[in-house]
């Protein structure tokens, strides 16, 4: 391959300033040097190296503080205009390891709700940043509304069940919720961000420190992918939190979804780009029909084209969404129905595209694609896991409902 990834999978480079490009370049070097060039070693010592590489990324390079304001030692990427740069970072991380990408994406999503202009909550930032963004690696976990159980009516966020509650107690709040399923890291998280219903059934988010004795974690889940994130169900048994740990401004849950769609999209696009690299190498070293290089066979070439096509269009969509988020004056705030709906459409589409790209490429790689030795099957499992989590419940149905509400003004769905 005589072109770089960025020459092939083009994106509007003008959305990313020169200083940000240097940080992005640093993360690409980390990905290449620390993980991609050492896939075998990384696979064989995954649990240990996952933590080591996460520390390098978050503490040595300092990405743990990426979207904190400067006064907290952060990079000050806490303005909507930074969205394209932030998603570029996630793409680079996702190219190396989707699990590190998801943990990072969730952390940035949660901190976006706290630090992103114009909603910078200085008091909350002062309380949380020194603990969760300092010199020790900290993990954040996100619990979104998803499905309910028959016979138990719950407050809803656009059809999805909110199974956690927050109620005033003393000078703070008490959080309750049983067997909640986070997106990531339930078994190890230092801080949970959970979508709750308040006493009027309105959605809000609560931040719950993981070391509270009334936080009860289930056993670590065995999942299709992203296992290094150590997920587990979590119950909150009347956990007391300070008043400032509840964010109830209108649209905060929509903001969370908007950022999550963008950043998990970035992770999956990065994973897809690395898959493209792998399947490209494969197609140049394998022959079919007794001598043709695989990529020179028209049918195989058309499959390879599908892989490139899906990743290529996904990256363009991704930066389209980043641009929309980055210009609230043109498109509206991240919590607006328009931006939220667009993020749902694009977020869902990107996951579908990337999983299709990998599924198609695996068709060519056959058993090698299926073997752990070639490393591509991990990408396949990881992206599928992201996709299912992002669906939340009912496959694409909730996103279709969000879309129909926006485009057709549906009222009853």
């Amino acid at each position: 391959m005589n072109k770089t990834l960025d020459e092939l999978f083009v994106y509007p480079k003008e959305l990313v300033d020169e200083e940000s490009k240097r940080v992005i370049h640093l993360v690409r070097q980390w990905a290449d040097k620390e993980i991609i060039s050492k896939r075998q070693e990384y696979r064989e010592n995954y649990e240990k190296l996952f933590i080591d590489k996460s520390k390098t990324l978050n503490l040595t390079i300092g990405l743990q503080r990426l979207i904190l304001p400067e006064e907290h030692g952060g990079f000050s990427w806490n303005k909507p205009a930074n969205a394209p740069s932030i998603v570029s970072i996630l793409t680079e991380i996702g190219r190396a390891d989707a699990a590190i990408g998801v943990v990072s994406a969730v952390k940035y999503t949660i901190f976006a709700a706290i630090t992103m202009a114009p909603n910078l909550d200085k008091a909350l930032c002062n309380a949380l940043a020194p603990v969760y963004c300092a010199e020790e690696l900290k993990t954040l976990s996100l619990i979104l509304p998803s499905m309910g159980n028959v016979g138990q009516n719950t407050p809803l966020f656009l059809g999805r069940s909110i199974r956690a509650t927050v109620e005033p107690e003393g000078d703070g709040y008490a959080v309750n919720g049983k067997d909640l399923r986070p997106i990531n890291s339930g078994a190890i998280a230092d801080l949970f961000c959970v979508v709750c219903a308040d006493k009027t059934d309105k959605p809000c988010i609560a931040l719950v420190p993981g070391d509270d004795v009334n936080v009860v974690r289930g056993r670590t889940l065995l999942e299709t992918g992203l296992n290094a994130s150590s997920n587990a169900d979590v119950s909150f048994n009347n956990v007391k939190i300070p008043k400032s740990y509840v964010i109830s401004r209108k649209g905060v849950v929509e903001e969370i979804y908007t950022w999550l769609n963008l950043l998990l999209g970035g992770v999956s696009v990065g994973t897809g780009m690395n898959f493209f690299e792998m399947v490209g190498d494969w197609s140049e070293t394998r022959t079919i029909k007794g001598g043709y290089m695989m990529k020179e066979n028209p049918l195989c070439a058309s499959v390879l084209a599908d892989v490139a096509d899906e990743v290529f269009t996904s990256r363009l969509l991704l930066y389209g969404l980043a641009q929309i988020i980055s210009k609230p004056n043109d498109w509206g705030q991240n919590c607006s129905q328009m931006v939220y709906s667009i993020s749902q459409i694009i977020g869902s589409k990107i996951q579908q595209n990337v999983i299709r790209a990998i599924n198609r490429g695996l068709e060519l790689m056959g058993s090698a694609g299926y073997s752990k030795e070639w490393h591509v099957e991990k990408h396949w499992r990881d992206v599928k896991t992201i996709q299912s989590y992002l669906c939340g419940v009912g496959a694409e149905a909730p996103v279709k409902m969000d879309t129909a509400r926006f485009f057709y003004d549906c009222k009853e769905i």
Partner: protein
Amino acid sequence: MKNFDEFSKPEEYISPMDKHFRSVLRKWAAKEVMPFRRKYDEDWKTHHLIEPAFDKLMGNKGVGIQKALFPPELGGWGIGQSDYAFTVACTLAEEVGRADTAMAVAFMVTYWPLTTILVDPHVNWRLAKEFAPMFCDTEKAVFAANAMTEPQGGADIENMEILGGKTVRTTARLNGDEWVINGHKLWPTNTGGVAKLFVVPCTTKLGSHDPNDFALIFVPADAKGVTQGGPYEKAGMAADKNGDIWFEDVRVPSWYRAHGPGMDAQVFREIIPWGLVGSMGFVCGAMLNLYEILYDFVSTKTYNNQPLKENDAIAGIIGRIAGDIDICRILTYEGARMGDRRNKPYGYPIYSDEVVGKLRNLKDFVSDRAVDIFGKAMDILGTYGADREYDIEKHWRDIKIIQLWMGGKQLCQMEAARYFFNCKTL
């Protein structure tokens, strides 16, 4: 609908033994596999958990199913000479596949090389007698393998229509009354130290595309010069081990060749339909299990405070899933029936372009639908879709390789194009 047994299958095609087989295998699956299958992924290398379940399925202390193809006079059940051989294979694949597709693959691939010598009209009685005790007189599961795929060209070897075996690098040289075999095979099911017996597709003249130079030779795994590598670690299919096999000056009696020049190439083409129908059976079994799990999930979980299945948009998705399962099962049994028509006046030989082209097409379609609906089912489960406790994600990982093997999608598409459009150069 009362239960998953009501997914359509053409009842008039079904073997008289169908109910009995299903009842026995379902009990075996419920007792020996279902309670343990979530731990199989970690058991991929040693099979400590998996092996006892295989013994209960295949060996004489259990169901004893590994002898099914052998003639009754050699201690078998005579399925190889039955008019329902393919349909029975489909039933077995489905029932075991419902519990664990990898177990279904491993046990049915034991039949695969044996079909070349045990299925009418090509029964090789001398070889049948030679190998019957290995499979019929034991309490342990005994596996065979079709050592087909080679490192350099993957499933090119299956492309007999165009390549005629010219890419085969594994050689067989007749030396006195022995074949001397040299070569390297990669990834066959039941390798990685499992198989006791291989059939080795090889060439008697390197680079030849003359079918007379293509040979199928049986090689006991303990023959001198046979080396098996350890199993590969994979995305799924833990109960099916795959590895490398090296044949270095391996000597076997000359009569271990399946049939001889010309006929070996023909029976090799005949095993392809067996693999295709088996593949469809495996994924149908997994799809039946998907339905069971999904039914429970969409009945007990809610969206908009309604059961998932009562929401019109979600019902549209699960309705399509169930519809696809129904269609795939019908197609699978139609494919099986094509195989069972082979000796009938209105059937085609199973090595014919008609049968191979149509079955490749059916297998391609059914496995594509399976990959799609398992992915969709995971998304229906949302945050629980990737959770091993719900069993769907395991099937999702397992069935992907079924779509990819036996030449993969592309060979299926080529064979279909050749047959349906009379393509000459593909």
